[in-house]
């Protein structure tokens, strides 16, 4: 078991939230540490461009 999994179970979540903002808010309301990413679909959501980017990066 990875240390981060042990850490998750022993200390609780310290989370990065990506997507639905409500999920970050509910973690925050339970006094759990969380940040919400300012996420947008990569490459303007263009699947071909995303595939190309993934090959390059």
């Amino acid at each position, binding site marked *: *078991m*990875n240390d*981060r*999994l042990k*850490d*998750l*179970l*022993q*200390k*609780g*979540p*310290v*989370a*990065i*939230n*990506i*997507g*639905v*903002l*409500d*999920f*970050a*808010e*509910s*973690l*925050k*309301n*339970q006094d*759990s540490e*969380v*940040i*919400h*990413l*300012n*996420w*947008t*679909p*990569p490459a*303007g*959501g*263009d*699947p071909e461009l*995303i595939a190309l980017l*993934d090959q390059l990066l």
Partner: protein
Amino acid sequence: MITRCLIRKKEYYDSVFLMRVAKQIAGQRGILQAATLMGTEKNKVLLADIGFESVEISSATPNDLIIAIRAENETILSNTIENIDQWLNQGVGETGALSYRTIEEAVTHLPRFNLAVISVPGQYADREARKALEQGLNVFLFSDNVPVESELSLKEFAREKGLILMGPDCGTAIINGIGIGFANRVRRGPIGVIGSSGTGLQEFTTLVHRFGSGISHAIGTGGRDLSDQVGGITFLSAMDALESDRETKVIALLSKPPGSSALEKLIQKIQLCRKPVIACFLGLKYQPTHEPIGCKLVRTIDEAASLSVQLATGNLPSLSEKSQQKLEERIRQHRSGKKSEQKYIRGIFAGGTFCYQAQQILQDAGIFVHSNAPLQNNPKLKDPMHSTEHTLVDMGSDEFTVGRPHPMIDSGLRYERILTEAKDPQVSILLLDFILGFNASLDPAGELLPAIDEAISEAKKRGESLTVVASVCGTEQDPQDFNLQFKKLEGAGVFVFSNSAQAARFCGLLITGGS
């Protein structure tokens, strides 16, 4: 009538938030219809279906926000548009001040993260989950529409790294007392649970809480984890984690029946496990003997919760929450005023697992029901919009929720369905579920009470009596307050249980004549 479509370039919001904004717009006086969606191809089709089409909409990208409004006149429309910024600004919370754009960026600046909670649209989920795992994070993957090949590859990668990937389509987890996704506020305690369905985990954890014990961790796996294709990778990793966890004394497993090779792996793991294991495989046709499995097998979620509490604390909680006198009184009430053609039950569920479990319980009582999500040997509804004879509908399934909020968030879909069922003179019983907890509707009972009242009074006008049975899944510590929701329903004449299986058993009793 006037229609307008606004495009806000490079302004991204999540779908749950946008559905709430659309509801706020639609609730304004004189607004006939409103939609707020990101400019994906799928959303453009949804907009065209409801009559919103324009060159601007066609050219919008998935990063552009489309606001489409139909109003009675120009003044109403202009006034509403003026308020849009204010509604959209509610989406810019304080959480993290929206300062990082990628997982890599966030981890570089704050390396202590141990979990990524991912709920982006399905087509981007694999990419983000993989990035999170590469950064050494465990993953709670709420996103659905992730191909099974991606799921397998992500889970193999997680296993390789000693991490856990909960999901895809994972609705619920409770880790060290913190609820993630649609979870309830429950007591901490000695029982660990691993489950393939969110509502299954919610029911189990709230029942353990109601039985006086508590939860160490509740780990969601996603619905396909115990398929032969995925091979139970998350179930097995979660079992390892719970076995090593000092707080966990008993481990419960909740799932539909596993695939045969996944079951073999699970059995091996159970047999080597040093802690007692209880398994509930909903829909399992035959009850195998306990010996080959190496653990206690039970039929329903409440039995799993009750037995777990007994193994952890030594006390077996009772499943019967009503006195015999109360039950007899209700059976008499049900029988009085019923017309001979009132023969059928209609279950209108927000929780898919509750719909499935109720079918199993009714089938065990010899009652076969139609459903849009049928149990083995039950007929599939030809049209999910129309019930026939005995019918239990999972209103959270895809055919109802494309472009609409899930019934756990918004009761609109169930409201309409209750009224539709109540018009059928053959209906005798309505069976409903109410699911509380983080991220669910703040007043699910209050939202449906007007529909329940109307259904009961419509039946009365026809000289019939309609029986409404419900279950509430939650705790007194939930934002909605279990006791408040329970009392609201009781006040409207609903016979309420705190346990979905018991509500279904009671309905079976009513249908079979109380024998």
